[in-house]
């Protein structure tokens, strides 16, 4: 009984803790990792992936990743596989039961790797990163298990040859790891075998990669099946994986070493090591709050829960520009943009990422899509597809852009792709009704597009900076619809374009004399009138916005302060303004916009 408990307790504790921890902290991450992966049931997809040695492991990883569409399902699956991996290692490497905790080290480090994922999750060049290390380690474990269980020496030679020559093209690094681990365990018994395996591992992968894989750089032959293309400037993210591989390879000698200290002490040491590995998880976790918000936002958009986005964005204290853009989109959808947009922070944080810092690359496609700029949205989804890999998210965005552009043949291509997936096929089928021109014409989003993007032949030479482009475009919207007026006024406030502001504002008032101007428009009108130093104009504007209104009253209370700031901006008055008038356009004008706002 005791011996059984020695096996079950560590594994059960690991499973329960891993599931609970990931369920509490990583549901959004799992969804986003899944959304940026791609598994389509089609041979053309297999043919493309199989151009690289070791392709089977990421392919399997990608297959499993699709189940993270429902994050708890994905988390349960990963937990199950990691627990199975721990048991498999314990069995394969013949660890004594009291050292079962040692077998937990690699799985725990895999969890650490998952939690260390940063913005790179939005753009990976390899498929299946969420699951492929686990699958790969299971394969390596089985290879090692077989190699140390073969009774005859000649069988070991054959097995080593089969693994290095025969399975390397399919399993890549993990085949090598498995055979090396088995060799380390067998090393004492057969030095010639050890030497031959070492030579084989050193030479064969390069030769095979160089000879048979003409779409693969053989310099990376020993890293095949690992996500090495994603390492650029991010090697730290992947270190727990390498630690897991090293611990797996050295686990048997480590167990032997510990065993020399006696059963009780070695068991304590094994548990201590497992606890130390567990400590790596929170230490390695990427805790950037903007990242957490952004993946929560992407999760919400991904499952069609757009209503949650505003709440998520407004809670972010110093948001990155992507979150500011999403926040404004959601305010705009609610008709609250001009009443609330300056109530939240405009001082943007930079994207704390080592290799993916450009907001347009991360969220440009979706932002353009929300404003119904189908061509630009499509462009950025395509740029991402080209730079990284096709993903469910980009394929969805491209399909939707093209459906709304009414390009049925092209839409069919993308929708057909998604119809060959497990969790996006229903969405894709639902989009097909919009391929009917009459249905599309009556669709509310298509109607919105016609109201916003009126320019038939406009050309822009650069869409690299999504927010700047949109602001510039909206600022210059002179042909008006109410929807365009709102966006135009918002953009001219952000860009501080007084002429454009007055043009649209006065046109609105003229068209609707009884209009109650939105709060920030009132604030801006009063400020810009004050700036002109024309008392008659200011009086007129006060009448226009309503002299008894809260905005006018607040303006009058702070008119001297604003006058001083207009005459000579200074930090002390600006700080006072921030205290007295938080959440106003005045505060944006004298504080936030002066603090190095860079539109990305």
């Amino acid at each position, binding site marked *: 009984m005791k011996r059984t408990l020695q096996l079950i307790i560590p594994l059960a504790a690991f499973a329960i803790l891993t599931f609970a921890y990931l369920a509490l902290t990583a549901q959004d991450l799992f969804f986003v990792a899944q959304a940026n992966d791609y598994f389509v049931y089609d041979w053309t997809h297999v043919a493309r992936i199989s151009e690289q040695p070791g392709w089977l492991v990421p392919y399997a990883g990608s297959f499993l990743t699709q189940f993270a569409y429902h994050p708890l399902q994905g988390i349960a699956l990963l937990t199950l596989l990691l627990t199975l991996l721990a048991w498999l290692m314990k069995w394969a490497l013949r660890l004594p039961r009291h050292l079962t905790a040692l077998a937990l080290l690699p799985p725990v480090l895999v969890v650490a790797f998952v939690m260390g994922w940063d913005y790179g999750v939005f753009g990976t060049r390899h498929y299946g990163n969420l699951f492929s290390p686990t699958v790969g380690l299971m394969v390596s474990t089985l290879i090692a298990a077989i190699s140390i269980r073969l009774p005859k020496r000649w069988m070991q030679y054959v097995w080593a040859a089969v693994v290095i020559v025969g399975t390397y093209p399919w399993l890549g690094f993990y085949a090598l790891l498995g055979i090396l681990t088995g060799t380390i365990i067998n090393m004492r018994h057969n030095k010639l075998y050890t030497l031959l395996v070492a030579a084989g591992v050193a030479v064969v992968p390069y030769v095979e990669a160089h000879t048979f894989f003409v779409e693969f750089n053989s310099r990376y032959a020993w890293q095949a099946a690992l996500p090495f293309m994603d390492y650029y400037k991010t090697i730290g993210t992947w270190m727990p994986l390498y630690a897991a591989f090293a611990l797996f390879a050295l686990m048997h000698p480590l167990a032997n070493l510990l065993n020399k200290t006696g059963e009780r002490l070695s068991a304590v040491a094994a548990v201590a090591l497992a606890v130390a590995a567990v400590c790596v998880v929170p230490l390695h976790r990427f805790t950037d709050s903007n990242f957490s918000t952004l993946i929560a936002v992407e999760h919400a958009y991904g499952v069609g829960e757009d209503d949650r986005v505003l709440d998520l964005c407004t809670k972010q204290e110093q948001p990155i520009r992507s979150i500011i853009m999403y926040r404004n989109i959601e305010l705009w959808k609610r008709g609250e943009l001009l009443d609330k947009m300056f109530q939240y922070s405009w001082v943007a944080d930079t994207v704390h990422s080592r290799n993916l810092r450009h907001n347009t690359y991360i969220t440009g496609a979706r932002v353009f899509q929300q404003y119904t700029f189908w061509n630009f949205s499509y*462009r950025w989804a395509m740029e991402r597809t080209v730079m990284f890999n096709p993903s469910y998210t980009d394929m969805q965005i491209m399909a939707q852009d093209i459906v709304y552009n009414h390009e049925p043949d092209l839409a069919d*291509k993308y929708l057909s*792709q998604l119809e060959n997936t497990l969790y996006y096929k229903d969405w894709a089928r639902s989009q097909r009704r919009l391929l009917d021109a009459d249905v599309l014409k009556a669709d509310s989003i298509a109607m919105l597009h016609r109201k916003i993007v009126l320019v038939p032949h406009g050309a822009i030479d650069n869409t690299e900076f999504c927010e700047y482009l949109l602001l510039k475009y909206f600022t210059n919207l002179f042909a008006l619809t109410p929807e365009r007026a709102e966006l135009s006024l918002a953009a001219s406030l952000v860009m501080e374009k007084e002429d454009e502001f007055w043009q649209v504002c006065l046109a609105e008032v003229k068209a609707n004399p009884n209009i109650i101007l939105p709060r920030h428009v009132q604030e801006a009108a009063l400020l810009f009138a004050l700036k002109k130093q024309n008392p008659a104009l200011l009086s007129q504007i006060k009448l226009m916005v309503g002299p008894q209104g809260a905005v006018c009253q607040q303006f009058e209370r702070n008119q001297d302060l604003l006058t001083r700031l207009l005459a000579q901006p200074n930090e002390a008055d600006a700080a006072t303004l921030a205290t007295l008038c938080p959440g106003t356009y005045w505060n944006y004008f004298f504080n936030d916009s002066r603090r190095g706002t860079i539109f990305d």
Partner: protein
Amino acid sequence: MRFNILITLAFAALLASCTPSVPQDARETGRDVSIFPDYTYVVLPPNIAPCNFHINDSTATEFVTVVEGADGQQLVVGGQDAMFGESKWHSLLEANKGTDLVVTVYSKNAGTWQRYKPFTISVAEEPIDEYITYRYIEASYRNYNELSICQRHLTDFDEQVMYSNRFLGGVNPENEFQCINCHNFQNYHTDNFQFHVRYAHAGTVIVRDGKAEKYSLKTDSTIGAGVYTAWHPTKPIIAYSLSHTVQTFLINEPDHKIEVLDTLSDLVIYHVDTNEIQIVQNSFNSFETYPSWSPDGKYLYYSSSWMDLEGKNTHYELGNHYDKIRYDIIRQSYDDATRTFGEPDTVVKATAFGRSATHARISPDGRYLMFSSGEYGHFMLHHFESDLYVKDLQTDSIRPLSNISSNRAESYHVWSSNGRWILFSTRREDNTWTRLYIGYFDREGRDHKAFALPQRDPLYNKKLLKAFNLGEFMVEPIKISPQELAEIIEKDPVPAKFYK
């Protein structure tokens, strides 16, 4: 490692095991069958790979396709994807050269067999060159990632990578990221050819008599390295356009999302023997591109546009007038003995008709000049209105190749070595992903409906997230391996000299 062998074996086993019987009591539907790719009423070369197709009928449960030759020989296959065995296909085509094949499709709906209206496929007498090369590229805007130049054997489905940028690609974008483009062969043979490598290990790889070397064609006196390319048909001379290229993005035109502009564009020739670059045209206000030699090598053809530019911000100036930039086709005679060019002579004055003409290609017999023409610009694949045209150089008449062209973009066309087949790029399938099609140009100078490059999987073009470009005919396979090319690419380039 591709799965071609496995797939071939699987299909062969499948075909051998299940030849269906032709339904005898089928009801006539009186309707045309819809198939993808559209091989109805096309003209095929007698040595082309099987033209497998998918039957667009989502309601039927079973399908039988019968292809019957004039001699009564039949090919019968089952399934919604009509896939023909290679040897039977070839023997059928060989036996029916110069005649028509009749294709009949049967489908079973609600337990009843029905027969669509049969269609014909004509088999020409003249074969097609056995090999083509093309580049796979994503349907990209600014970014590109996985590029490969591939060779395809047209009589079957064998595809080999000539060189892929991933062979030397890797983690670091600064020194392991490269673009490869503009492969070009001398007179359909593969002993002499070239392609460019940009960014990492940049240079132009020139294979001469089977031996490769890498050159840097940028000199202090030219605006850049070579871009669009044309080997002289007999001499060791390569014509290049040199250009600075930018993109402009269209906000709200579904059919036209991007326009490609040259802000600078000149023309040079490179003397391979002496490693010298010689300027042909380099005026600031004229833009020359897409060089091409006449088959006798006496004329250099190219496209040229003239713009009055202030020169302060050329990109901005051109971007604002992108729909006013139009190209004519010019030729200049060339005398190799003196290395001199004659005066420019306008051969196709498209601007006179408010159009733009690019990609001049002279037929091997020297009689026809084929070009693509759209409303403006030079990058015709982004112009859905771009079609192929020919000018008969004997009669000076110009006419569209209406049967070969579609209502979407056609461009980058080449003649086969016998002048009977035209390989071209088109976006006819979805207006975005460029595909290769082949059209028949008969002895009387008439064009016929073009067919898609046959693929083993008939839905390949729909599934593939890569575009084809720069299709080129070859009469023999490439003899140099990717590994050998990579070795050369890794070396430092030999700098070209400027010829004054």
